[in-house]
């Protein structure tokens, strides 16, 4: 074989491999290139304040589950006394709260024999209809099977916006994404080889047609406030459950706490 032809083929193969790897990385998570337009990225841990309730007035960290299509009507969790069971209070887990800039993945297995969720880093497992539920953030969302960015938060003009697309709930052997924005599901039926072909096409389209890869998230992120002086932090969002047994129920989440800067976490945690 002609040396130059062989070298050319090796170079071509290397270029394609590199391109595929870069393409896969681009598909896999959020880019930090837009940091300047989004504001300043905060990397560290939101040490969450435990939830508390006085009558229907809630503070700290809590969540509610709204019934399908019934604005203001929430599921009554008999295991919670907050707001007559209409809200469930959350307490910090072993990490003290939510890490920005890294994942806090669900353990394996994610459940005990009775369906209680075992993830305990972000919040302490909490009874919900008789079974412990918990939170985790995973590189691949367990429900949608979509690769998602780690939780990220940006501060701009005193307001914060967060990508919590990795926010996933585990309860009673079920997993459902409760993030904001929402991951686009990757669980649709695909013909053999279709997934790889789509990845190659995304790469080719991105490289030669200057076309952005298909979006992996949709909708708005979480919003809130942050006081850089005290570190006081409030973050809230609504998340529609898409798919699974609780399809079309809506989770309403409210996180309060104190943000402490920390080094970026390992990419998979």
């Amino acid at each position: 074989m002609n040396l130059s032809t062989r070298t050319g083929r090796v170079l071509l193969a290397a270029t394609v491999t590199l391109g595929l790897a870069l393409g896969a990385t681009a598909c896999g998570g959020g880019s930090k290139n837009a940091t300047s337009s989004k504001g300043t990225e905060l990397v560290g841990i939101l040490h969450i304040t435990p939830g508390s309730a006085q009558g229907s007035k809630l503070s700290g960290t809590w969540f509610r589950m709204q019934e399908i299509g019934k604005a203001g009507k929430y599921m009554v969790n008999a295991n919670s006394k907050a707001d007559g069971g209409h809200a469930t209070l959350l307490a910090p887990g072993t990490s003290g709260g939510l890490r920005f800039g890294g994942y806090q993945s669900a353990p394996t297995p994610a459940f005990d024999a009775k369906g209680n969720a075992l993830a305990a880093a972000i919040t302490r497992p909490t009874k919900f209809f008789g079974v412990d539920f918990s939170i985790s953030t995973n590189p691949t969302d367990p429900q949608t099977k979509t690769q998602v960015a780690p939780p990220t938060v940006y501060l701009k003009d005193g307001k914060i916006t967060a990508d919590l697309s990795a926010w996933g709930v585990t309860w009673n052997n079920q997993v459902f994404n409760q993030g904001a924005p929402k991951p686009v599901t990757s669980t649709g039926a695909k013909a053999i080889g279709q997934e790889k072909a789509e990845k190659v096409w995304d790469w080719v389209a991105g490289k030669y047609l200057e076309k952005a890869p298909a979006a992996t998230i949709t909708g708005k992120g979480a919003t809130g406030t942050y006081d850089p002086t005290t570190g006081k932090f409030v973050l809230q969002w609504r998340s529609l459950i898409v798919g699974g047994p609780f399809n079309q129920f809506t989770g309403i989440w409210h996180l309060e706490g104190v943000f402490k800067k920390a080094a970026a976490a390992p990419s998979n945690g």
Partner: protein
Amino acid sequence: MTTPSLLAELTLPAAPPVVRASAAPVRRRRAPALVLLVIGSLLVVGPIAGGLFVKVASGQQMIDAFAPYITLDSLDQYDGDLRTLSSGVKSVDAVYADQKIPAAKYPGVTAYRTDGPAIDRRATTLLTRIRAAQPDYQRVSDIGGFDRIPFLLVLCGLALAHAGAVLLGGRRQRAGGAVVLALAAAVVLIAYPLVGSLPAGTRAGERLQHALAPVMTRATVRQEQDDFVVLVQAVGELDTAFRAEPRTPQAHAQLNTLVKAWPRISSDLASLVGTINDNLTDYQALSDLDATTSDVGVSGLKALPWFLVGVGAVSALAAGAALASQKRPRKALA
């Protein structure tokens, strides 16, 4: 002195012209090659244009997704769950009657009392349908490689189209190979359904698709979600405030059983409802596949294996005709 010539001049008679024997001209009939080309092209274009790849993959995904729920053991467990829920309603009725409990005191448990029998009927109907469909489900899942059928069609189509094109316009020396290729593709198309369990599987698939039609709807999922909310709220109250209500030992035992079994029951129900919900699109794709030939009054699923056999047979005949045509010398021109 002169040397006499040793060789006399030889005069040869003029030789007749040499005529090279040429092969007998072959009549290349175009019809068989055209048939192969058209069939091949349709087999390549049809599955792609008709979305067959995604429809078949959807069917396969649905079959795989239901695998854990449609076993006899799993169905027996669901029956047990329903018995526990039904006993719970009777026990709650007894406690309400004995203690003269006002309906408004435990809204969740009261809703369970009221809706319990209807919830039980709906769940029983759903499970009865699924249980009845279990043998057909098994036959469908036994097909194996269902999602590879479009690839088979396209590959055979490419082979047939290539053979047809060669026979039509390629070099004559390649005609034999083209005929062999076409015959091989035809044999694959005929053999695949007959050797495997495809006819039985697709017949079962058609029955399964009709049997699950009332189950695989948004309305069913929505109703099951509503029923789940009633149950989950009731068990929550049974496990907390309602525990204070005096009750007979029998009612106490039955309600305790319900509360203890609830995590498993709710997991079973949630998993099944979730699987139904997440496969509605897959089910629709399978229905669309079955309806592909509805215009001619035939089930697409049932027709699929015989379509393969038919196409294979026509292709084999066309390849055979092409072969015969290659061998037959043309009659000498008068």
